[in-house]
């Protein structure tokens, strides 16, 4: 007798746990590969999966086995020209070819163990250990999202939510309450009936026995008439909708597109912004991005234009800051939004303007934002802007960060540095 079972609908991801165990164990290797990948990738596929390669040596599971040497006899198939007694010169050992026979290792060269991780896993590794400066504001944002939670038991509800145990318990209690009098009465009657029956037959009062019996039967019938389950026994699980606090974030990306920024510098800035954007998206349920580009005047643009259109001109950084200030006031009250600012420039600025930037930042921007980061992409010495910003950092050490990037290799490390968990940053 055979049973034939269709298992195709069963879960197919039985090995997911084991796969995760594997990733967990080789975290260090994967992280390194992810770090390397970050630097060599083009901007657009920052958030794709990645091929990870680990040296086979590191993941092999050791076993006791025979090594090369000693005296081995091996039987092989497919003899063509040999006869007994032939001597064959020993070939220099290559790979594991020479030790087939009894040994368990089948000579798999020294290839790396290569596998693919998904986008999700890639980002996990990329942002692992990073944290947004922990000043997350949550608030009840309108009536957009609700969470259904249990809220005890109610007497009304749909049949689907019937609580069987509570209902039967209520029914049981009701039956006890409604019949206890009668059952006590029955017990008394039964006792006197028994007394009567124990008497000798001559002394027995047949009529009394009959009367008792009929009364007991009558009472039993009435007890039996109490319904097993009544409408008002039914209890239902009560579910209510609770509004859910949501965290929202807005990120301001400020980029210098003046003539002094060449294409390579812009590319680096874009990489940095993209990383930041991916990171925010993972940390907040709802993220908006405002792109601001500036030369002598600032302009709010969309993503496409921000990353790809070209422009030249002089540099007035404060124009961007002013625009950011205006947008913040108009659209993103800081009571509702977590505001992040990120600015990239090559450090060139109109000389008088740097002090204006300083003032705007300190008076109007820093008090409202969660975090403001500034990256300066230049191999040259710092100028006035850097110095002004340094004094801002002195005033807001936990909310303001600045770093310098010289070439592409620096972006990811600098990014990690800016957002590494504060615990480590302090000590």
């Amino acid at each position: 007798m055979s049973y034939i079972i269709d298992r195709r609908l069963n879960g197919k991801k039985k090995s997911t746990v084991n796969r995760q165990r594997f990733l967990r164990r080789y975290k260090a290797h994967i992280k390194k590969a992810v770090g390397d990948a970050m630097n060599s990738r083009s901007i657009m596929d920052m958030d794709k999966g990645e091929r990870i390669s680990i040296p086979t040596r590191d993941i092999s599971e050791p076993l006791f086995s025979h090594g090369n040497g000693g005296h081995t006899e091996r039987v092989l198939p497919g003899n063509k020209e040999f006869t007994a007694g032939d001597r064959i010169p020993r070939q220099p050992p290559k790979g594991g070819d020479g030790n087939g026979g009894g040994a368990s290792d089948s000579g798999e060269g020294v290839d790396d163990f290569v596998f693919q991780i998904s986008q999700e896993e890639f980002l996990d590794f990329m942002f692992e250990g990073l944290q947004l400066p922990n000043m997350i504001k949550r608030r009840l944002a309108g009536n957009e999202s609700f969470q259904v939670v249990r809220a005890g038991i109610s007497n009304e509800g749909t049949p689907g939510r019937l609580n069987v145990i509570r209902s039967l318990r209520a029914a049981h209690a009701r039956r006890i309450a409604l019949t206890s009098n009668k059952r006590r009465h029955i017990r008394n009657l039964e006792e006197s009936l028994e007394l009567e029956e124990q008497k000798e037959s001559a002394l027995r009062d047949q009529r009394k026995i009959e009367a008792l019996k009929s009364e007991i039967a009558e009472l039993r019938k009435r007890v039996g008439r109490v319904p097993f389950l009544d409408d008002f026994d039914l209890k239902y699980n009560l579910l209510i909708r609770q509004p859910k606090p949501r965290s929202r974030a807005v990120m301001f990306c400020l980029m210098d597109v003046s003539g002094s920024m060449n294409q390579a510098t812009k590319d680096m800035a874009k990489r940095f912004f993209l990383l930041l954007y991916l990171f925010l998206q993972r940390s907040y349920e709802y993220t908006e991005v405002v792109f601001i580009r500036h030369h002598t005047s600032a302009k709010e643009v969309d993503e496409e234009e921000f990353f790809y259109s070209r422009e030249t001109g002089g540099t007035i950084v404060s124009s961007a800051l002013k625009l950011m200030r205006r947008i913040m006031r108009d659209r993103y009250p800081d009571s509702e939004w977590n505001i992040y600012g990120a600015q990239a420039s090559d450090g060139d600025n109109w000389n008088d303007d740097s002090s204006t930037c300083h003032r705007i930042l300190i008076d109007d921007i820093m008090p409202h934002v969660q975090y403001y980061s500034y990256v300066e992409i230049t191999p040259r010495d710092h100028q006035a802007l850097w110095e002004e910003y340094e004094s801002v950092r002195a005033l807001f050490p936990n909310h303001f960060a600045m770093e310098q990037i010289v070439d592409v290799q620096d972006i990811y490390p600098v990014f990690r540095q800016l957002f590494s968990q504060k615990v480590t940053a302090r000590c």
Partner: protein
Amino acid sequence: MLDKFAGGDDSQKPESVNPISTSSEWTFELIQEYDRAIGALADEFGLDTYPNQIEVISSEQMMDAYSSVGMPVGYNHWSFGKQFISVENNYQRGLMGLAYEIVINSNPCIAYLMEENTMTMQALVIAHASYGHNSFFKGNYLFRSWTDASSIIDYLIFAKNYISRCEERHGLNEVEAVLDSCHALMNYGVDRYKRPYPISAIEEERQQQEREEYRQRQLNDLWRTIPKLGDGAEASNEKRFPEEPQENILYFIEKNAPLLEGWQRELVRIVRKLAQYFYPQRQTQVMNEGWATFWHYTLLTELYRRGRVTEGFMMEFLQSHTNVIYQPSFDSPYYNGINPYTLGFSIFSDLRRICEDPTDEDRRWFPDIAGSNWRETLHFAMRDFKDESFILQFLSPKVMRDMKLFCISDNDQENEIVVSAIHDESGYRQLRENLAGQYNLGNREPNIQVYSVDTRGDRSLTLNHTQHRRRPLSKDTPEVLRHLHRLWGFDIHLNSLNGDEITASYHCPEQGRDRQEGEEESMLIPKPI
């Protein structure tokens, strides 16, 4: 092997044509019908099987099953993840096809069919797994005495639950460390001479608690440090512990390691039990696959002879069959050892030939078998042998000639490799002995046994490796010793012996070096618990 069929022998032509199906699409009804037809035939041939449970799965599920060595429930461990990732990679890049079937030695016998297979392949798999392997599991003495088909699934469930409870209580890393170490010694976790008792999962759980208490009591006795009264005379002729060398290293650790906690001992036991379950499979690969291949071939050609399958079916079947038993020769780039399917199938087919149509040579070599009832002889060969003795007993000169086997002798003390025997009259016996030796687990794996424990001193554990034809241990050895060291908790010494002479010694921690330094070499080296 196939010439009989391909040669157009009249006896192989269908008697009347009434095929079960004509299309290559399968349906559940058809699978059932084929199963019934094949099952009835198997009955006629006297195959005794467990009830069958045939499960249709998708290719993803097949990959899952692959990476957990075919077990339907398995505990979680990174090495299964590694296995899965590499199977998935190879499959997606088209480097390998998935096996057509996986079959589990359980009662009922579970066989997986892949949904991508054609009707022909499903029928092939049913014949191969559900009747071939199944009857082997039920009949072969190793499986009968080493595994208990009815309790394995229960035990796996127990193991999975126990290990995940340990993970909750003691943390993933702790559990993983112990399992890693046990896996390294898995091949040395078999009791070769005792038969285990079958027990159910619930029973297992109850006993596990008893064991824990018992072990602790025993241990305390072994490691007692209070000196006995009147010690003087006894101390000099003190007995070695263990009195006899122990081949089951994991068992020895489970019972005697001084520092392991109860749950860690239980993990050792779980790995040991699984090793024992797989032990017969490692020893009967050629026989098991040969038997299953022989029967799928025999059953399906018989179906054809009776007109239950079409010629198209047979063409497709024969193509897969010849792929399965293809043996590349030793100098081919595809050569990867002797194909157990080919060897097993050839021996079983030739046995049938010897019974039905013996030549003079066969009468000389197999006087008892030649001309006997082939079904009884084949069943006898299947029941009472393992690979090594099976080859030694039944490998016939004809098979050696067909496969063109030859034997080379590779002695590292000489400059040249010598061809010591080929498939000719003077070489048959030596060839057969050497091939049998190749399947002897004792020769294949280094013979390493627990020799002694310094119970009164530093508690160090000494192992002896008895060399087989001067073969040394591989480079992995220090790595394995580190795992052993983690389980044992004290120093480990391993001496490699050629006769009585120690030719190599391994120590963990390595001698003459600072311990801390040695242990921090790599992030993956186990640290003592």
